[in-house]
C-alpha cells in the first residue's frame, strides 16, 4: 500500500484518539481547578443531558436490522419487548441481552418460515 495512504490512516488514528482524550484532559483540569479552590465542579447542563441522549440515539440507529424485511422488523419488535420484560423482572445486564437476542433469533427464524 502507498505510503500516503498509511500517513492518512495514521492521521485518522491520531485524530480519533485526540477526539477521545482531549475532552477528558480538559474536563479533568476543570474539575481539579475547582477542587483546589474548594468549590464544587459541575458539568455544563447541556453536556450532562447529551450523555443519555447519545445512548438513546445509538439505540434508535442500531434497531434497524442489517437486512430490513418484514421478518427482521417483527423479530426486532419481539426482541425489544422481551429484553424490556426480562430487564424489568431481573434488573441485570447480561440476562436481558441474552434473552433479547435469543427471542430475536427464534422470531426471525419463525417469521422466515
Amino acid at each position: 500500500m502507498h505510503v500516503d495512504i498509511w500517513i492518512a490512516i495514521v492521521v485518522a488514528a491520531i485524530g480519533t484518539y485526540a477526539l477521545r482524550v482531549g475532552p477528558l484532559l480538559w474536563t479533568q483540569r476543570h474539575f481539579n481547578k475547582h477542587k483546589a479552590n474548594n468549590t464544587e465542579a459541575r458539568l455544563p447542563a447541556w453536556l450532562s443531558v447529551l450523555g443519555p441522549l447519545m445512548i438513546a440515539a445509538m439505540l434508535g440507529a442500531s434497531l434497524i436490522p442489517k437486512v430490513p424485511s418484514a421478518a427482521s422488523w417483527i423479530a426486532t419488535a419481539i426482541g425489544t419487548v422481551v429484553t424490556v420484560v426480562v430487564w424489568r423482572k431481573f434488573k441485570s445486564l447480561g440476562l436481558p441481552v441474552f434473552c433479547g437476542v435469543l427471542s430475536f433469533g427464534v422470531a426471525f427464524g419463525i417469521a422466515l418460515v
Partner: protein
Amino acid sequence: MSQLSSKSGLKQGVIDGLPLLGGYIPVAISFGVIAVQAGFSTLEATLISIFIYAGASQFLLVAMVASGAPLWLAVCMTLLVNVRHVVYAPNLVPYLPQSKAWPYLMHGLTDQIFALAHTRLPLMDDAKKVDWFKGVSMVAWLSWIVGTALGGIAGDSLTQQWPILDSVMPFALPALFLVLLAPKFSSKLWSATLLVTMTAALFLALSAFKNAAIPLAALCGAITFYFLTSHVERKQSHAR
C-alpha cells in the same frame, strides 16, 4: 446490577463486556471482508482496527480510499464521523477516580463502552473503576481486532456457513443499549425525550443522513428536553 460489589473490577468488566461480542464480531468481520475487497491486506485491515478502532468511520475511510477520493477528504470525513466522541469523556469525568491510566484507556472509549461506563461507573467503588474499564474495553477491542482478522482471512465463508452470526447476533447491541437506558424511563420528561431521540435516530439512519444520525438525533432530543423543561417551568410559574 446488585452483583457489582462482589466481583473484582477486572472480572466484572470482562463480564459486562461479553454482550458486546454479539455486536462487535459480526461488524468487525464485515469490515475485514470489505477492507480486503477494497485492496487492503488482512494485516493492513487489522492494523486499521487496532489503531483507529471506530466502527462506522473505518468503513467510510476504506471505501473512500478505495474509490480514489482525496486522502485529506477521507481523513476529514473520518474525523467528522468520530467527532461525537468529544461528549463522551466529559460525561464520565465526575465518576473517574484519579489515575494516570485514564488518558491511555480513552483509546477504548467507543460508543458502546461509553454507554456501559456511563451506567456502570456511578454504581461502582472507586477502587475498582480503572480495572473495570480495562476489562470491558479489552474485551471489546480484542473482539474488534480478532473479528477484523477473521473477516480478512475467511469472512465470506464464515458468514455463509454461520448466517446466524450475520443476521441475529448484531441484535445484542440494541438490546444492550435498551438495558442501559431502561432506568432513565422512570420520569415522564426523560421518557418523552428519549423516545423522540430514538425515533429521530431510527428515521435518520434510514435516510441519506446515516452517518450523522447519532449527533443529529441527540440534537433533536436536546431541543425536546429544553422545550419540555421550559414548558413545565412556565406551567409551574403560572400556577403560583
